[in-house]
Protein backbone atom coordinates (compact mmCIF):
# COMPACT_ATOMS: atom_id res chain seq x y z
CA UNK A 1 0.00 0.00 0.00
CA UNK A 2 1.45 3.38 -0.92
CA UNK A 3 1.80 5.50 2.16
CA UNK A 4 0.24 8.89 1.56
CA UNK A 5 1.32 11.84 3.67
CA UNK A 6 3.92 9.80 5.46
CA UNK A 7 6.31 12.44 6.80
CA UNK A 8 9.75 12.35 5.17
CA UNK A 9 11.37 11.82 8.57
CA UNK A 10 9.53 8.51 9.14
CA UNK A 11 12.44 6.19 8.16
CA UNK A 12 14.80 8.08 10.48
CA UNK A 13 12.22 7.88 13.24
CA UNK A 14 11.83 4.12 12.83
CA UNK A 15 15.59 3.68 12.88
CA UNK A 16 15.73 5.79 16.02
CA UNK A 17 13.04 3.66 17.73
CA UNK A 18 14.74 0.43 16.68
CA UNK A 19 18.08 1.66 17.98
CA UNK A 20 16.49 1.78 21.43
CA UNK A 21 16.41 -2.00 21.77
CA UNK A 22 12.95 -2.50 20.33
CA UNK A 23 11.41 -4.97 17.94
CA UNK A 24 9.35 -3.36 15.15
CA UNK A 25 5.85 -4.80 14.90
CA UNK A 26 2.93 -4.17 12.61
CA UNK A 27 -0.73 -4.86 13.27
CA UNK A 28 -3.68 -5.11 10.86
CA UNK A 29 -5.49 -1.84 10.10
CA UNK A 30 -8.84 -3.58 10.51
CA UNK A 31 -9.28 -4.60 14.11
CA UNK A 32 -12.05 -6.19 16.19
CA UNK A 33 -13.90 -3.24 17.77
CA UNK A 34 -14.78 -5.00 21.01
CA UNK A 35 -11.48 -4.58 22.87
CA UNK A 36 -11.37 -0.84 22.18
CA UNK A 37 -14.97 -0.27 23.30
CA UNK A 38 -14.45 -2.51 26.30
CA UNK A 39 -11.35 -0.66 27.43
CA UNK A 40 -12.31 2.94 26.62
CA UNK A 41 -16.10 2.77 26.90
CA UNK A 42 -19.01 3.42 24.58
CA UNK A 43 -18.06 7.05 24.12
CA UNK A 44 -15.27 5.91 21.84
CA UNK A 45 -17.84 4.67 19.33
CA UNK A 46 -18.42 8.22 18.10
CA UNK A 47 -14.72 8.75 17.56
CA UNK A 48 -13.73 5.64 15.64
CA UNK A 49 -14.67 4.24 12.24
CA UNK A 50 -16.74 1.15 12.72
CA UNK A 51 -18.01 -1.44 10.34
CA UNK A 52 -19.32 -4.96 10.46
CA UNK A 53 -18.19 -8.21 8.98
CA UNK A 54 -20.60 -10.30 6.95
CA UNK A 55 -21.21 -12.39 10.04
CA UNK A 56 -22.10 -9.37 12.15
CA UNK A 57 -18.79 -9.04 13.99
CA UNK A 58 -17.99 -5.42 14.94
CA UNK A 59 -14.81 -4.20 13.31
CA UNK A 60 -13.04 -0.88 13.31
CA UNK A 61 -10.18 0.89 11.68
CA UNK A 62 -7.25 0.86 14.10
CA UNK A 63 -7.74 3.97 16.28
CA UNK A 64 -4.44 3.55 18.14
CA UNK A 65 -1.63 1.04 18.58
CA UNK A 66 -1.41 0.16 22.26
CA UNK A 67 -4.31 -2.31 22.35
CA UNK A 68 -3.40 -4.07 19.05
CA UNK A 69 0.25 -4.36 20.10
CA UNK A 70 -0.76 -5.80 23.48
CA UNK A 71 -3.24 -8.22 21.91
CA UNK A 72 -0.57 -9.35 19.48
CA UNK A 73 1.80 -9.90 22.39
CA UNK A 74 -0.77 -12.04 24.21
CA UNK A 75 -1.58 -14.06 21.08
CA UNK A 76 2.01 -14.77 20.13
CA UNK A 77 2.67 -15.77 23.75
CA UNK A 78 6.21 -14.53 23.67
CA UNK A 79 7.79 -14.02 27.08
CA UNK A 80 8.57 -10.76 28.78
CA UNK A 81 10.23 -8.33 28.98
CA UNK A 82 9.67 -7.14 25.42
CA UNK A 83 10.04 -3.75 23.83
CA UNK A 84 7.90 -3.18 20.75
CA UNK A 85 8.09 -0.26 18.32
CA UNK A 86 5.47 0.68 15.77
CA UNK A 87 4.79 3.21 13.08
CA UNK A 88 1.58 3.26 11.10
CA UNK A 89 -1.64 4.94 10.23
CA UNK A 90 -4.46 5.35 12.75
CA UNK A 91 -8.04 6.44 12.08
CA UNK A 92 -10.22 8.63 14.26
CA UNK A 93 -13.15 10.94 13.75
CA UNK A 94 -11.78 14.30 14.72
CA UNK A 95 -13.39 17.72 14.67
CA UNK A 96 -10.11 19.25 13.56
CA UNK A 97 -7.33 17.77 11.52
CA UNK A 98 -7.33 14.77 9.27
CA UNK A 99 -9.23 11.59 10.11
CA UNK A 100 -6.24 9.46 9.22
CA UNK A 101 -2.79 10.18 10.48
CA UNK A 102 0.38 8.46 11.53
CA UNK A 103 1.46 7.46 14.97
CA UNK A 104 4.66 5.86 16.13
CA UNK A 105 5.79 4.76 19.53
CA UNK A 106 7.18 2.20 21.90
CA UNK A 107 5.34 -0.23 24.20
CA UNK A 108 7.55 -1.65 26.93
CA UNK A 109 5.96 -4.80 28.35
CA UNK A 110 6.98 -6.79 31.40
CA UNK A 111 9.97 -4.82 32.70
CA UNK A 112 9.94 -5.53 36.44
CA UNK A 113 12.01 -2.44 37.32
CA UNK A 114 9.12 0.03 37.17
CA UNK A 115 11.12 3.19 37.87
CA UNK A 116 13.66 2.31 35.22
CA UNK A 117 11.00 1.46 32.62
CA UNK A 118 9.08 4.69 33.38
CA UNK A 119 12.24 6.76 33.04
CA UNK A 120 13.18 5.01 29.82
CA UNK A 121 9.76 5.74 28.28
CA UNK A 122 9.97 9.45 29.14
CA UNK A 123 13.62 9.61 28.09
CA UNK A 124 13.02 7.83 24.78
CA UNK A 125 10.06 10.06 23.94
CA UNK A 126 12.04 13.24 24.62
CA UNK A 127 15.10 11.98 22.73
CA UNK A 128 13.16 10.81 19.69
CA UNK A 129 11.28 14.12 19.51
CA UNK A 130 14.46 16.17 19.98
CA UNK A 131 16.15 14.24 17.19
CA UNK A 132 13.27 15.08 14.83
CA UNK A 133 12.91 18.67 16.02
CA UNK A 134 16.40 20.02 16.66
CA UNK A 135 16.27 23.53 18.07
CA UNK A 136 12.64 23.33 19.17
CA UNK A 137 12.17 23.74 22.94
CA UNK A 138 9.87 21.12 24.39
CA UNK A 139 7.79 21.16 27.51
CA UNK A 140 7.26 17.90 29.45
CA UNK A 141 4.42 17.47 31.95
CA UNK A 142 4.24 14.45 34.23
CA UNK A 143 1.52 13.11 36.53
CA UNK A 144 1.10 10.06 38.72
CA UNK A 145 -2.24 8.55 39.68
CA UNK A 146 -0.69 6.35 42.36
CA UNK A 147 0.29 9.44 44.39
CA UNK A 148 -3.32 10.64 44.31
CA UNK A 149 -4.47 7.16 45.34
CA UNK A 150 -2.04 7.26 48.27
CA UNK A 151 -3.26 10.72 49.34
CA UNK A 152 -6.89 9.61 49.22
CA UNK A 153 -6.09 6.42 51.15
CA UNK A 154 -4.03 8.28 53.75
CA UNK A 155 -6.89 10.73 54.33
CA UNK A 156 -8.77 7.75 55.75
CA UNK A 157 -11.75 8.15 53.44
CA UNK A 158 -14.27 5.30 53.20
CA UNK A 159 -13.37 2.72 50.58
CA UNK A 160 -16.39 3.56 48.41
CA UNK A 161 -15.37 7.19 48.19
CA UNK A 162 -11.74 6.38 47.52
CA UNK A 163 -12.86 4.34 44.55
CA UNK A 164 -15.09 7.16 43.27
CA UNK A 165 -12.36 9.78 43.60
CA UNK A 166 -9.70 7.62 41.97
CA UNK A 167 -12.09 6.77 39.19
CA UNK A 168 -12.73 10.46 38.46
CA UNK A 169 -9.02 11.34 38.65
CA UNK A 170 -7.85 12.94 35.41
CA UNK A 171 -11.23 14.45 34.62
CA UNK A 172 -11.09 17.84 36.36
CA UNK A 173 -14.77 18.76 36.07
CA UNK A 174 -15.91 15.35 37.23
CA UNK A 175 -13.52 15.33 40.17
CA UNK A 176 -14.50 18.85 41.27
CA UNK A 177 -18.18 17.98 41.03
CA UNK A 178 -17.62 14.80 43.02
CA UNK A 179 -15.70 16.59 45.79
CA UNK A 180 -18.48 19.18 46.00
CA UNK A 181 -21.13 16.47 46.27
CA UNK A 182 -19.20 14.54 48.91
CA UNK A 183 -18.70 17.65 51.04
CA UNK A 184 -22.26 18.88 50.59
CA UNK A 185 -24.26 18.85 53.81
CA UNK A 186 -27.28 17.53 51.88
CA UNK A 187 -27.84 13.79 52.35
CA UNK A 188 -25.33 12.01 50.15
CA UNK A 189 -27.25 8.81 49.73
CA UNK A 190 -30.73 8.35 48.37
CA UNK A 191 -32.66 5.25 49.26
CA UNK A 192 -35.77 4.00 47.52
CA UNK A 193 -39.09 3.25 49.27
CA UNK A 194 -38.33 -0.48 49.27
CA UNK A 195 -35.20 0.08 51.36
CA UNK A 196 -37.20 2.17 53.82
CA UNK A 197 -39.81 -0.56 54.07
CA UNK A 198 -37.10 -3.16 54.72
CA UNK A 199 -35.59 -0.92 57.38
CA UNK A 200 -38.94 -0.83 59.22
CA UNK A 201 -39.23 -4.60 58.94
CA UNK A 202 -35.74 -4.90 60.41
CA UNK A 203 -34.45 -6.80 57.40
CA UNK A 204 -31.43 -4.55 57.03
CA UNK A 205 -30.04 -5.26 60.46
CA UNK A 206 -27.78 -8.10 59.55
CA UNK A 207 -26.28 -9.09 56.25
CA UNK A 208 -27.48 -12.70 56.23
CA UNK A 209 -31.15 -11.69 56.61
CA UNK A 210 -30.76 -9.10 53.88
CA UNK A 211 -29.10 -11.56 51.50
CA UNK A 212 -31.85 -14.11 52.16
CA UNK A 213 -34.51 -11.50 51.46
CA UNK A 214 -32.87 -10.39 48.19
CA UNK A 215 -32.44 -13.99 47.14
CA UNK A 216 -36.09 -14.82 47.85
CA UNK A 217 -37.29 -11.72 45.94
CA UNK A 218 -35.12 -12.63 42.97
CA UNK A 219 -36.56 -16.14 42.96
CA UNK A 220 -40.10 -14.84 43.21
CA UNK A 221 -39.68 -12.39 40.33
CA UNK A 222 -37.92 -14.92 38.11
CA UNK A 223 -34.87 -12.71 37.88
CA UNK A 224 -32.32 -14.88 39.63
CA UNK A 225 -31.32 -17.18 36.79
CA UNK A 226 -29.79 -14.35 34.80
CA UNK A 227 -28.90 -11.94 37.59
CA UNK A 228 -25.47 -10.45 37.03
CA UNK A 229 -25.23 -9.06 40.54
CA UNK A 230 -25.69 -11.63 43.27
CA UNK A 231 -27.74 -11.05 46.43
CA UNK A 232 -24.47 -10.84 48.39
CA UNK A 233 -23.14 -8.15 46.00
CA UNK A 234 -26.24 -6.04 46.41
CA UNK A 235 -26.43 -6.51 50.19
CA UNK A 236 -22.78 -5.64 50.66
CA UNK A 237 -23.01 -2.43 48.66
CA UNK A 238 -26.30 -1.41 50.26
CA UNK A 239 -24.72 -1.67 53.70
CA UNK A 240 -21.68 0.27 52.48
CA UNK A 241 -23.98 2.96 51.17
CA UNK A 242 -25.92 3.14 54.42
CA UNK A 243 -22.71 3.58 56.37
CA UNK A 244 -21.72 6.46 54.09
CA UNK A 245 -25.11 8.15 54.13
CA UNK A 246 -24.40 10.01 57.34
CA UNK A 247 -20.75 10.72 56.58
CA UNK A 248 -19.44 13.59 54.54
CA UNK A 249 -16.14 14.88 53.37
CA UNK A 250 -15.00 17.22 56.15
CA UNK A 251 -13.67 20.67 55.38
CA UNK A 252 -10.11 19.82 56.35
CA UNK A 253 -9.89 16.77 54.06
CA UNK A 254 -11.49 18.71 51.24
CA UNK A 255 -8.95 21.49 51.66
CA UNK A 256 -6.12 18.92 51.70
CA UNK A 257 -7.32 17.28 48.49
CA UNK A 258 -7.66 20.68 46.81
CA UNK A 259 -4.20 21.70 47.97
CA UNK A 260 -2.74 18.48 46.64
CA UNK A 261 -4.50 18.73 43.27
CA UNK A 262 -3.24 22.30 42.83
CA UNK A 263 0.42 21.24 43.07
CA UNK A 264 2.33 22.10 39.93
CA UNK A 265 6.07 22.50 40.07
CA UNK A 266 9.40 21.35 38.72
CA UNK A 267 9.81 17.58 39.01
CA UNK A 268 13.22 18.15 40.62
CA UNK A 269 11.47 19.86 43.55
CA UNK A 270 8.42 17.57 43.57
CA UNK A 271 9.66 14.79 45.91
CA UNK A 272 10.56 17.37 48.56
CA UNK A 273 7.28 19.25 48.05
CA UNK A 274 5.25 16.04 48.32
CA UNK A 275 7.10 15.02 51.47
CA UNK A 276 6.48 18.47 52.95
CA UNK A 277 2.80 18.28 52.00
CA UNK A 278 2.49 14.85 53.60
CA UNK A 279 4.23 15.97 56.78
CA UNK A 280 2.19 19.14 57.14
CA UNK A 281 -1.03 17.25 56.51
CA UNK A 282 0.00 14.43 58.82
CA UNK A 283 -0.43 11.87 56.04
CA UNK A 284 1.75 8.87 55.44
CA UNK A 285 2.34 8.45 51.72
CA UNK A 286 5.15 5.94 52.34
CA UNK A 287 5.46 3.59 49.37
CA UNK A 288 3.99 5.92 46.77
CA UNK A 289 6.43 8.66 47.70
CA UNK A 290 9.37 6.24 47.63
CA UNK A 291 8.37 5.05 44.17
CA UNK A 292 7.99 8.63 43.02
CA UNK A 293 11.48 9.47 44.26
CA UNK A 294 13.06 6.44 42.67
CA UNK A 295 11.47 7.40 39.35
CA UNK A 296 13.00 10.87 39.58
CA UNK A 297 16.38 9.26 40.32
CA UNK A 298 15.92 6.87 37.38
CA UNK A 299 15.10 9.80 35.11
CA UNK A 300 18.38 11.46 36.08
CA UNK A 301 20.21 8.22 35.29
CA UNK A 302 18.43 8.03 31.93
CA UNK A 303 19.77 11.48 31.14
CA UNK A 304 16.54 13.43 31.68
CA UNK A 305 16.92 16.62 33.71
CA UNK A 306 14.01 16.60 36.23
CA UNK A 307 14.19 20.39 36.56
CA UNK A 308 13.10 20.58 32.90
CA UNK A 309 9.98 18.49 33.63
CA UNK A 310 6.80 19.86 35.25
CA UNK A 311 4.99 17.69 37.78
CA UNK A 312 1.25 18.38 37.86
CA UNK A 313 -0.52 16.51 40.66
CA UNK A 314 -3.95 16.59 39.00
CA UNK A 315 -2.73 15.23 35.67
CA UNK A 316 -4.09 11.78 34.86
CA UNK A 317 -6.19 9.83 32.39
CA UNK A 318 -9.69 8.78 33.42
CA UNK A 319 -9.33 5.24 32.07
CA UNK A 320 -9.23 2.44 34.55
CA UNK A 321 -6.21 0.69 33.07
CA UNK A 322 -3.85 3.63 33.59
CA UNK A 323 -2.27 3.03 36.96
CA UNK A 324 0.64 5.37 37.55
CA UNK A 325 2.86 7.54 35.40
CA UNK A 326 1.35 9.69 32.66
CA UNK A 327 3.21 12.27 30.62
CA UNK A 328 2.79 14.61 27.69
CA UNK A 329 5.27 16.52 25.58
CA UNK A 330 4.34 19.73 23.77
CA UNK A 331 6.32 22.50 22.14
CA UNK A 332 7.04 25.20 24.72
CA UNK A 333 4.10 27.63 25.12
CA UNK A 334 1.92 25.58 22.77
CA UNK A 335 -0.81 23.12 23.84
CA UNK A 336 -0.22 20.83 20.83
CA UNK A 337 0.55 17.36 22.21
CA UNK A 338 3.41 15.78 20.23
CA UNK A 339 3.85 12.75 22.47
CA UNK A 340 1.73 11.16 25.17
CA UNK A 341 2.48 8.19 27.33
CA UNK A 342 1.93 6.41 30.57
CA UNK A 343 1.88 3.24 32.59
CA UNK A 344 -0.98 0.79 32.03
CA UNK A 345 -0.27 -2.15 34.32
CA UNK A 346 -3.89 -3.29 34.25
CA UNK A 347 -4.39 -3.39 30.49
CA UNK A 348 -2.85 -6.74 29.60
CA UNK A 349 -4.83 -8.70 32.18
CA UNK A 350 -8.00 -6.89 31.07
CA UNK A 351 -7.22 -7.99 27.52
CA UNK A 352 -6.85 -11.58 28.64
CA UNK A 353 -3.22 -12.08 29.63
CA UNK A 354 -2.94 -14.88 32.19
CA UNK A 355 -0.45 -13.12 34.41
CA UNK A 356 -0.02 -9.51 35.37
CA UNK A 357 2.35 -7.77 32.95
CA UNK A 358 3.54 -4.30 33.96
CA UNK A 359 3.57 -2.03 30.92
CA UNK A 360 4.52 1.48 29.96
CA UNK A 361 4.68 3.23 26.61
CA UNK A 362 4.24 6.35 24.59
CA UNK A 363 3.00 7.38 21.17
CA UNK A 364 4.01 10.20 18.87
CA UNK A 365 1.70 12.27 16.65
CA UNK A 366 3.56 12.41 13.37
CA UNK A 367 1.35 15.01 11.64
CA UNK A 368 1.82 17.40 14.54
CA UNK A 369 5.56 16.82 14.64
CA UNK A 370 5.66 17.53 10.90
CA UNK A 371 3.76 20.80 11.33
CA UNK A 372 6.06 21.96 14.13
CA UNK A 373 9.08 20.98 12.03
CA UNK A 374 7.75 22.98 9.11
CA UNK A 375 7.04 26.04 11.27
CA UNK A 376 10.54 25.87 12.75
CA UNK A 377 12.26 25.56 9.36
Amino acid at each position, binding site marked *: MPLINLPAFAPDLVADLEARGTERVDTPVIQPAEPF*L*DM*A*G*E*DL*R*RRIFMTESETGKSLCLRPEFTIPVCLRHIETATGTPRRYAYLGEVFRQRREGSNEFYQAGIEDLGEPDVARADARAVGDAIAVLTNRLPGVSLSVVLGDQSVFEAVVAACGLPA*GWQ*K*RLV*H*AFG*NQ*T*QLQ*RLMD*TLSNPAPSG*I*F*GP*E*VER*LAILGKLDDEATLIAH*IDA*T*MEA*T*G*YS*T*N*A*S*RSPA*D*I*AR*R*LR*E*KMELASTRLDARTLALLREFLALELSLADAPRALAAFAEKAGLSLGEALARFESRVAALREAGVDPSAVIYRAAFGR*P*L*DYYTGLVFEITPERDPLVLAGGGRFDRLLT*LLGARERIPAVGFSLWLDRIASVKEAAA
Partner: protein
Amino acid sequence: MTITIGLPSKGRMKEDSSAILARAGFSVVAVGNDRSYRGRVEGRDDIEIAFLSASEISREIANGTVDFGVTGEDLVREGLAEADARVEFCARLGFGHADVVVAVPEIWLDVDTMADLGDVAADFRARHGRRLTIATKYWRLTQQFFSGNHGIQLYRIVESLGATEGAPASGSADIIVDITSTGSTLVANHLKILSDGVILKSEACLVRARKPEHEGNPVVAEIIDAVRGAL
Protein backbone atom coordinates in the same frame (compact mmCIF):
# COMPACT_ATOMS: atom_id res chain seq x y z
CA MET B 1 -41.43 28.31 -2.64
CA THR B 2 -43.65 25.55 -1.25
CA ILE B 3 -43.32 24.70 2.42
CA THR B 4 -43.44 20.98 3.21
CA ILE B 5 -44.62 19.63 6.54
CA GLY B 6 -43.80 16.04 7.47
CA LEU B 7 -46.50 14.33 9.52
CA PRO B 8 -46.65 10.85 11.07
CA SER B 9 -48.25 8.48 8.57
CA LYS B 10 -50.36 6.43 10.95
CA GLY B 11 -51.92 5.91 14.34
CA ARG B 12 -52.61 8.28 17.20
CA MET B 13 -49.72 10.53 16.24
CA LYS B 14 -51.24 11.05 12.77
CA GLU B 15 -54.67 11.94 14.15
CA ASP B 16 -53.32 14.20 16.90
CA SER B 17 -51.03 16.15 14.60
CA SER B 18 -53.76 16.63 11.97
CA ALA B 19 -56.07 17.84 14.76
CA ILE B 20 -53.54 20.46 15.94
CA LEU B 21 -52.98 21.67 12.39
CA ALA B 22 -56.75 21.88 11.84
CA ARG B 23 -57.11 23.99 14.99
CA ALA B 24 -54.33 26.18 13.65
CA GLY B 25 -56.38 26.70 10.50
CA PHE B 26 -54.63 24.22 8.25
CA SER B 27 -57.02 21.48 7.30
CA VAL B 28 -55.01 18.48 6.10
CA VAL B 29 -56.44 16.24 3.38
CA ALA B 30 -54.82 13.27 1.70
CA VAL B 31 -54.16 13.53 -2.01
CA GLY B 32 -56.00 10.72 -3.78
CA ASN B 33 -57.11 8.06 -1.31
CA ASP B 34 -56.81 7.85 2.49
CA ARG B 35 -53.69 5.69 2.40
CA SER B 36 -51.80 8.12 0.18
CA TYR B 37 -48.48 9.38 1.48
CA ARG B 38 -48.97 12.85 0.01
CA GLY B 39 -51.34 15.41 1.39
CA ARG B 40 -52.25 19.07 1.07
CA VAL B 41 -53.79 21.80 3.10
CA GLU B 42 -57.23 22.93 1.93
CA GLY B 43 -57.07 26.24 0.16
CA ARG B 44 -53.27 26.47 0.39
CA ASP B 45 -51.17 25.77 -2.68
CA ASP B 46 -48.05 26.94 -0.87
CA ILE B 47 -48.09 24.14 1.74
CA GLU B 48 -47.51 20.44 1.09
CA ILE B 49 -47.88 17.53 3.47
CA ALA B 50 -45.64 14.44 3.43
CA PHE B 51 -46.80 11.50 5.51
CA LEU B 52 -43.75 9.70 6.84
CA SER B 53 -42.95 7.06 9.43
CA ALA B 54 -42.15 8.68 12.78
CA SER B 55 -38.50 7.73 12.71
CA GLU B 56 -38.02 9.06 9.17
CA ILE B 57 -39.31 12.51 10.04
CA SER B 58 -36.25 13.57 12.03
CA ARG B 59 -33.98 12.38 9.22
CA GLU B 60 -35.97 14.25 6.57
CA ILE B 61 -35.87 17.44 8.65
CA ALA B 62 -32.12 17.01 9.09
CA ASN B 63 -31.42 16.71 5.39
CA GLY B 64 -33.88 19.47 4.60
CA THR B 65 -36.33 17.52 2.40
CA VAL B 66 -39.12 18.77 4.63
CA ASP B 67 -39.27 22.23 6.20
CA PHE B 68 -41.33 21.26 9.23
CA GLY B 69 -42.11 18.01 10.92
CA VAL B 70 -44.24 16.80 13.77
CA THR B 71 -42.38 14.14 15.72
CA GLY B 72 -41.17 13.16 19.17
CA GLU B 73 -38.32 15.18 20.65
CA ASP B 74 -36.65 11.87 21.62
CA LEU B 75 -36.42 10.78 17.99
CA VAL B 76 -34.92 14.11 16.90
CA ARG B 77 -32.36 14.22 19.70
CA GLU B 78 -31.46 10.57 19.17
CA GLY B 79 -31.30 10.86 15.39
CA LEU B 80 -29.26 14.04 15.04
CA ALA B 81 -25.90 15.10 16.39
CA GLU B 82 -26.07 18.69 17.65
CA ALA B 83 -29.83 18.78 17.13
CA ASP B 84 -30.29 22.34 18.37
CA ALA B 85 -27.92 23.72 15.76
CA ARG B 86 -29.76 21.96 12.95
CA VAL B 87 -33.40 22.22 13.93
CA GLU B 88 -35.65 24.52 15.92
CA PHE B 89 -38.22 23.12 18.32
CA CYS B 90 -41.00 25.62 17.53
CA ALA B 91 -43.77 24.28 19.74
CA ARG B 92 -44.41 21.46 22.18
CA LEU B 93 -47.72 19.99 21.16
CA GLY B 94 -49.00 18.37 24.34
CA PHE B 95 -49.39 14.80 23.09
CA GLY B 96 -47.13 11.81 22.54
CA HIS B 97 -45.67 12.19 26.03
CA ALA B 98 -42.85 9.76 26.78
CA ASP B 99 -39.86 9.95 29.10
CA VAL B 100 -36.52 8.45 28.16
CA VAL B 101 -35.31 6.92 31.41
CA VAL B 102 -32.57 4.83 32.97
CA ALA B 103 -34.12 1.81 34.70
CA VAL B 104 -32.42 -0.89 36.75
CA PRO B 105 -33.72 -4.11 38.35
CA GLU B 106 -35.94 -3.25 41.31
CA ILE B 107 -33.94 -5.63 43.46
CA TRP B 108 -30.80 -3.51 43.09
CA LEU B 109 -31.68 -2.02 46.46
CA ASP B 110 -28.38 -0.19 46.63
CA VAL B 111 -28.87 1.66 43.33
CA ASP B 112 -31.15 4.70 43.30
CA THR B 113 -29.05 7.38 41.64
CA MET B 114 -26.70 7.72 38.69
CA ALA B 115 -23.86 8.05 41.21
CA ASP B 116 -24.76 4.60 42.58
CA LEU B 117 -24.79 3.25 39.06
CA GLY B 118 -21.38 4.83 38.43
CA ASP B 119 -20.00 2.96 41.45
CA VAL B 120 -21.46 -0.32 40.26
CA ALA B 121 -20.17 0.24 36.71
CA ALA B 122 -16.68 1.12 37.95
CA ASP B 123 -15.95 -2.26 39.46
CA PHE B 124 -18.35 -4.33 37.37
CA ARG B 125 -15.54 -5.73 35.30
CA ALA B 126 -13.47 -6.70 38.33
CA ARG B 127 -16.46 -8.50 39.86
CA HIS B 128 -18.17 -9.99 36.84
CA GLY B 129 -15.47 -10.18 34.18
CA ARG B 130 -17.27 -7.87 31.77
CA ARG B 131 -18.55 -4.34 31.56
CA LEU B 132 -22.02 -3.30 32.70
CA THR B 133 -24.38 -3.63 29.73
CA ILE B 134 -27.27 -1.37 28.81
CA ALA B 135 -30.04 -2.46 26.46
CA THR B 136 -31.38 0.46 24.44
CA LYS B 137 -32.21 1.83 21.04
CA TYR B 138 -31.11 5.29 22.25
CA TRP B 139 -27.37 5.12 21.63
CA ARG B 140 -26.77 8.84 21.39
CA LEU B 141 -28.95 9.92 24.31
CA THR B 142 -27.44 7.21 26.50
CA GLN B 143 -23.88 8.17 25.66
CA GLN B 144 -24.52 11.87 26.23
CA PHE B 145 -26.24 11.26 29.54
CA PHE B 146 -23.81 8.69 30.92
CA SER B 147 -20.53 10.18 29.71
CA GLY B 148 -21.41 13.85 29.40
CA ASN B 149 -23.64 14.42 32.41
CA HIS B 150 -22.43 11.78 34.82
CA GLY B 151 -18.89 10.88 33.81
CA ILE B 152 -19.72 7.19 33.48
CA GLN B 153 -17.62 5.66 30.71
CA LEU B 154 -17.33 2.02 31.51
CA TYR B 155 -20.41 0.35 30.15
CA ARG B 156 -21.43 -1.31 26.91
CA ILE B 157 -24.56 -0.77 24.90
CA VAL B 158 -26.47 -3.77 23.61
CA GLU B 159 -28.77 -2.68 20.84
CA SER B 160 -32.39 -3.51 21.51
CA LEU B 161 -35.10 -2.65 19.04
CA GLY B 162 -38.05 -4.03 20.94
CA ALA B 163 -39.14 -5.49 24.29
CA THR B 164 -36.20 -3.72 25.89
CA GLU B 165 -37.77 -4.04 29.35
CA GLY B 166 -37.25 -7.79 29.21
CA ALA B 167 -33.49 -7.57 28.71
CA PRO B 168 -32.39 -7.64 32.39
CA ALA B 169 -34.58 -10.66 33.20
CA SER B 170 -33.45 -12.54 30.11
CA GLY B 171 -29.82 -11.77 30.88
CA SER B 172 -29.12 -9.98 27.61
CA ALA B 173 -28.27 -6.76 29.49
CA ASP B 174 -27.97 -5.54 33.08
CA ILE B 175 -30.02 -2.35 32.85
CA ILE B 176 -32.03 -0.46 30.22
CA VAL B 177 -32.55 3.00 28.75
CA ASP B 178 -36.02 3.19 27.22
CA ILE B 179 -39.13 5.31 26.85
CA THR B 180 -42.00 5.03 29.23
CA SER B 181 -45.22 6.97 29.48
CA THR B 182 -46.90 5.50 32.54
CA GLY B 183 -44.12 3.33 33.91
CA SER B 184 -46.41 0.32 34.13
CA THR B 185 -44.36 -1.84 31.74
CA LEU B 186 -41.28 -1.13 33.84
CA VAL B 187 -43.07 -2.13 37.03
CA ALA B 188 -44.43 -5.29 35.39
CA ASN B 189 -40.85 -6.21 34.54
CA HIS B 190 -39.54 -5.45 38.05
CA LEU B 191 -37.56 -2.43 36.95
CA LYS B 192 -37.32 0.96 38.66
CA ILE B 193 -36.35 4.38 37.32
CA LEU B 194 -33.36 6.00 39.02
CA SER B 195 -34.26 9.14 40.97
CA ASP B 196 -32.07 11.26 38.67
CA GLY B 197 -32.46 8.89 35.75
CA VAL B 198 -34.84 10.84 33.51
CA ILE B 199 -32.76 11.61 30.41
CA LEU B 200 -35.45 13.47 28.51
CA LYS B 201 -39.09 14.38 28.99
CA SER B 202 -40.24 13.99 25.44
CA GLU B 203 -43.45 14.88 23.65
CA ALA B 204 -44.53 15.56 20.08
CA CYS B 205 -43.07 18.83 18.79
CA LEU B 206 -43.38 21.03 15.75
CA VAL B 207 -39.81 20.99 14.50
CA ARG B 208 -38.34 23.25 11.84
CA ALA B 209 -35.27 22.54 9.74
CA ARG B 210 -32.94 25.52 10.12
CA LYS B 211 -32.71 26.59 6.49
CA PRO B 212 -31.39 29.99 5.42
CA GLU B 213 -34.26 30.47 2.94
CA HIS B 214 -36.77 30.38 5.81
CA GLU B 215 -35.47 33.81 6.83
CA GLY B 216 -38.23 36.33 6.19
CA ASN B 217 -40.55 33.74 4.60
CA PRO B 218 -44.07 34.80 5.69
CA VAL B 219 -45.52 31.26 5.36
CA VAL B 220 -42.91 29.84 7.74
CA ALA B 221 -43.69 32.50 10.31
CA GLU B 222 -47.43 32.02 9.77
CA ILE B 223 -47.28 28.26 10.41
CA ILE B 224 -45.28 28.70 13.61
CA ASP B 225 -47.56 31.44 14.94
CA ALA B 226 -50.76 29.60 14.02
CA VAL B 227 -49.66 26.32 15.64
CA ARG B 228 -48.51 28.12 18.79
CA GLY B 229 -51.84 29.93 18.86
CA ALA B 230 -53.77 26.68 18.58
CA LEU B 231 -52.24 25.12 21.71
